[in-house]
């Protein structure tokens, strides 16, 4: 049996989140993400879940953190300006290790920018937007079914690593309609947050598990502990002892970095015999895939490398690929934000060029193909 529907990426994202067990949504309306809120408002109460439209973006972020501490899986969705407003509390969720998912359907910026046009200019903000050091998990879907799939995976990773996860969509995938087989997608595995395996008397809230993540009991379950955004030790209470401060800050980075093999995702197309590789992600990867076809038709041995987790970046896979090719070409709808990371990973072994577009228009396969040719004469 299949259940094939035609739907928007935003809708697939909402349905994926519900499949993953999200039962609490708090947010604020903003284009081009609003459909996610609208669908959650309609669907969540059918599952006994809760939807609340908060007074601002900051409150939306705060409310999902509060709700998550009661044991619920939580999600909010926003776009550029709202993503900026949420940053302080995203940092709080990272520091207090409260799982939640923040969807950012990227539009043109800076500032109010282009509310109804696509961009990919929050690559760096999605990792470095809040103050302080920490690891970050950021996933970028490229198709409507992938919006569903990565919504599920975002929730799973948030619950497993006890951290906010950013589902970094863009206006292209958010608003485009495509076929999706819900029956098939709903086979996706769902991860549920760990519960303490000891009694309240032996419970240490921020003692890390084998992944480096704490096991936080739901508020109301009989385990009383303290949650703070202050730098804290394993008991959860604030500390300024240098060794303890270093330990928690290091762990917030390491619990992502040390589990990179479990988290990173990427896709390669036509890379087996490739002499050059195009790097693209999210909505822009759709045009890049077609550009590869155009160039292949002309006899150019070009492949596509698509990071699905932009953070952590699939560095090993790209390093392996870079050893086989003569050049790398990055296409993205910003001023080369991920290209910086690509250059860092490749370390000058092969030339890295790119096509960086900031005009609010979807780049065409021909533009990418022409750009590649210009760089690979």
């Amino acid at each position, binding site marked *: 049996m299949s259940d094939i529907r035609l739907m928007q990426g935003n809708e697939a994202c909402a349905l994926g989140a519900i499949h993953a067990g999200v039962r609490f949504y708090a947010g604020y309306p903003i284009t081009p993400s609003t459909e996610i809120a609208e669908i959650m408002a309609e669907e969540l109460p059918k599952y006994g879940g809760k939807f609340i439209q908060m007074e601002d973006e900051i409150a939306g972020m*705060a409310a999902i953190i509060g709700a998550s501490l009661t044991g619920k899986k939580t999600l909010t969705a926003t776009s550029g300006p709202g993503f900026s407003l949420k940053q302080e509390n995203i940092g709080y969720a990272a520091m207090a290790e409260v799982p939640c998912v923040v969807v950012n359907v990227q539009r043109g910026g800076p500032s109010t920018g282009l509310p109804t046009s696509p961009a990919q200019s929050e690559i760096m903000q999605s990792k470095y937007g809040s103050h302080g050091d920490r690891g970050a998990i950021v996933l970028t879907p490229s198709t409507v079914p992938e919006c569903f799939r990565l919504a599920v995976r975002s929730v799973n990773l948030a619950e497993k690593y006890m951290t906010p996860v950013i589902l970094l969509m863009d206006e292209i995938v958010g608003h485009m309609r495509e076929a999706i087989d819900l029956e098939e997608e709903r086979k996706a595995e769902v991860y549920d947050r760990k519960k303490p395996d000891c009694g309240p008397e032996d419970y240490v809230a921020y003692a890390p598990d084998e992944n480096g993540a704490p096991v936080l009991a739901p508020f109301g379950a009989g385990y009383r502990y303290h949650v703070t955004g202050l730098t804290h030790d394993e008991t959860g209470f604030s500390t300024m002892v240098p060794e303890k401060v270093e330990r928690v800050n290091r762990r917030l980075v390491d619990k992502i970095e040390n589990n990179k093999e479990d988290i990173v995702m990427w896709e390669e197309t036509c890379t087996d015999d490739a002499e050059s590789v195009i790097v693209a992600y999210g909505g822009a990867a759709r045009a890049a895939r077609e550009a590869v076809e155009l160039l292949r038709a002309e006899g150019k041995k070009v492949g596509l490398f698509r990071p699905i987790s932009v953070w952590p970046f699939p560095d090993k896979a790209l390093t392996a690929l870079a050893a086989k090719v003569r050049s790398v070409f990055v296409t993205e709808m910003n001023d080369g934000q991920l290209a910086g990371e690509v250059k860092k990973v490749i370390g000058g072994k092969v030339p890295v060029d790119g096509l960086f577009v900031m005009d609010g228009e979807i780049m065409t396969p021909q533009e990418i193909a022409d750009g590649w040719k210009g760089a690979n004469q």
Partner: protein
Amino acid sequence: MSDKKYLRNDKLPHIWCPGCGNGIVLSALERALEQANVDKDKTVIVSGIGCSSRMPTYMDFNTLHTTHGRALAFATGVKLANPELTVFVIMGDGDATAIGGNHLIHACRRNIGLNAIVVNNNIYGMTGGQYSPLTPTGMKATTAPYGMVERNFDLCELAHAAGATYVARGTVFHAKPLTDLILESMDNDGFSMVEVLSTCPIGFGRRNKIRGNYELMEWVKNRAVNVKAAAKMSEEDLRGKLLIGRLYSEPAEEYTKCYDKIIEIAGKEAKR
């Protein structure tokens, strides 16, 4: 301090300065919780940022010390996600009325079942004495060296106008009545706010030539007039005074209960 049932006695002594009103507020709250015999495991204490927001550290519950101004927004998530929990929210005057003003009026408007306590010491204490929206006009702060130039608002009137269904004001001078007000606020099934007129001898008193802790306590006491006594006083006598006691009690359906009805309606829609 002797061992208290609802305190994390191992976390004491507290960080507050001598003469600070926070300890009196904490004691009043502890007494109220004890008299109400609340279940420690089913009660959550949320706070923002500032001196008074360190209070949950000393309280033996699930405690949530959040970001500056946002305590009510975090608490809204806690309460809506699990309405069985009793949720207290402790904030200072800067936290609740300046950076968190938007969340305050909307929590009032929704009438969500939270018990808010706003400790009003008329100043930003933790950062060293800058003016807050509740620093009385003309009085001094490090950022108002020539006197507070802005006007204030009456926090209780604001909360009432925004829709809070229980509003009271107490002081740290009147510790026993404060306990009673907090206890009474817990009976309201909806958004309750208790403003507590408090003292900051270092950040506020000293700078305003109210030198001793006793003198500052006296200053707080003299600003307050019991709401019942006020009924017999002239407008002139009441100028510059703040009413204390239960100011408003106007029960209305609580927000999470309203939302439960939405779940019921949506559940029927889904079955159709």
